[in-house]
């Protein structure tokens, strides 16, 4: 095209529709460009690929299995209570990770102890999974959040398997329970999940929150002061001595006995856990459903001291998203795929519940402090 073609002076001013009619190829080209850009945008957003495993899809399936969401509550681990105290890092911890939390002084901690149920009013005797969520807040903003479970690893190692398990666990409308045939089929094709189920059945259940120990489940990288990155898992190991309750004793206890016991326990004095990191050996699988051999190097990294327990109705933990990828410099995600999906699903759960009115929790209006 010559310069003259581009000269508006050669062309009498025409109205826009006339101009578009005069240049149909160019007009169509522009339409194609705009449609392409819009299509790419929608594709990246997952709108053209409903099969993509987004956080909304996972959460919708979880909510459906639970018979609908409980407004204002977390979509999982819904029944909980707020805790507060401090964390004091150990020099051995500082050698493994340069995160500010291991700097040595006591730093403030807030958190939450909960049960792994989507029902905030579930009976404590009906639940076999307990969790601890923490926010460690050293000065300077290098906050570390975690959400850790008392389970021996996880039942799956990928978000896809996590979703497949939810689908297989869908309650049969006739019985209200998962279809045994579907569940058996899932376990048959997912040996990691079958192994996890066996570990859970063999594991004695702690009698309370205070004498239970909680595991990171997932692998993370601890970055040492010299820059060395090591794959670790960690656990919060209870200082209170372990005890368990017979099933018939549990059944006879009150609906909120775990919480009632915790409130009684904290009045007797602070509750402590030791943060123990387990360092992977080369070749250890970074799969959440696979435990590492028991002889791996363990490092005591600090002590968590909880001296206050408070209902979610008035406490500070309900409105926090304990996103396991809120990590300080010195701790980094590993190639374990589960935390990324957890982070995305937690964000969506937080987004949904934050816009809802929250009815009072099962344990309302109670708080207690260590003497």
């Amino acid at each position, binding site marked *: 095209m010559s310069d003259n073609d581009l000269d508006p002076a050669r062309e009498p001013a025409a109205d*826009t529709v006339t101009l578009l009619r005069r240049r149909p190829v160019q007009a169509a080209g522009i339409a194609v460009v705009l449609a392409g850009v819009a299509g790419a945008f929608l594709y990246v957003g997952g709108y053209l690929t409903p099969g993509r495993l987004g956080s909304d899809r996972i959460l919708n399936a979880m909510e459906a299995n639970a018979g609908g969401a409980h407004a204002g509550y977390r979509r999982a681990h819904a029944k909980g209570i707020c805790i507060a105290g401090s964390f004091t890092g150990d020099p051995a911890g500082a050698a493994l990770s340069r995160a500010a939390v291991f700097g040595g002084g006591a730093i403030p901690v807030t958190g939450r102890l909960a049960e792994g149920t989507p029902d905030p009013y579930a009976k404590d005797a009906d639940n076999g999974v307990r969790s601890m969520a923490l926010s460690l807040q050293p000065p300077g903003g290098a906050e570390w959040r975690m959400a850790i479970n008392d389970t021996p690893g996880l039942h799956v190692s990928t978000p896809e398997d996590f979703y497949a398990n939810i689908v297989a666990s869908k309650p049969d409308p006739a019985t209200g329970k998962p279809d045994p045939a579907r569940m058996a089929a899932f376990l048959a094709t997912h040996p990691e999940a079958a192994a996890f189920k066996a570990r859970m059945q063999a594991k004695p259940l702690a009698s309370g929150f205070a004498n239970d120990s909680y595991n990171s489940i997932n692998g993370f990288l601890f970055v040492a002061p010299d820059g060395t990155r090591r794959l670790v898992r960690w656990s919060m190991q209870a200082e209170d001595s372990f005890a368990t309750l017979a099933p018939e004793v549990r059944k006879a206890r009150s609906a909120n006995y775990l919480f009632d016991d915790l409130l009684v326990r904290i009045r007797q004095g602070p509750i402590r856990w030791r943060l123990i990191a387990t360092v992977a050996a080369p070749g250890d699988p970074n799969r959440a459903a696979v435990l590492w051999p028991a002889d791996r190097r363990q490092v005591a990294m600090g002590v968590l001291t909880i001296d206050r327990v408070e209902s979610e109705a008035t406490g500070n933990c309900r409105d926090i998203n304990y996103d396991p990828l809120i990590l300080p410099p010195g701790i980094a*995600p590993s190639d374990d795929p589960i935390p*990324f999906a957890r982070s995305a699903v937690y964000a969506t759960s937080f987004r949904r519940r934050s*816009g809802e009115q929250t009815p009072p929790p099962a344990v309302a209006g109670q708080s207690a402090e260590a003497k």
Partner: protein
Amino acid sequence: MRAQVKRFPLLSRIFHWTMAVLVLAMLFIGIGMVSTTSDRYNMLFAVHRTIGIVILVLVAGRLINRLLNPPPALPSDLPRWQRVAAGLSHVVLYALMFALPIVGWAMLSAGGYPILIFGTLALPPILPHDVATFAVLRTAHSALAFLLFATFLAHLGAALFHRFIRRDDVLQSMT
């Protein structure tokens, strides 16, 4: 390029094309990160926070530059409705380039999230921790992002319209 094309000042053109790349990247990163559970999620979110603040700083500088160095006039024979649409769309683009980073920052503040940029720099909260506010701002952030994308499409379409249909100098004035 013909000599008589009245172009934007060089600084304006640098602002325009730098921010065009950043804003478009942000729109795609934003819609992508909220739709994925893959291992890209965390990295995308970290980049999104950082570029958002960079855009906020740049758009402030760009607005000052625009006031000091006004853009060249539109073609005198441009129909009135297109003149008005051009003016309005630029107001909307500037407003959204300010609003999206500020809403994003305010939203993370109200949600009780730490706000790390460049991986290590912690920004202070600009709103108190309040999840009802978070919910409103979180919804607004997405709605405004879609509005920005729609306005960007109109802007791109108009630029191509000037270049290939009207064949005037408007697109060249920014190149």
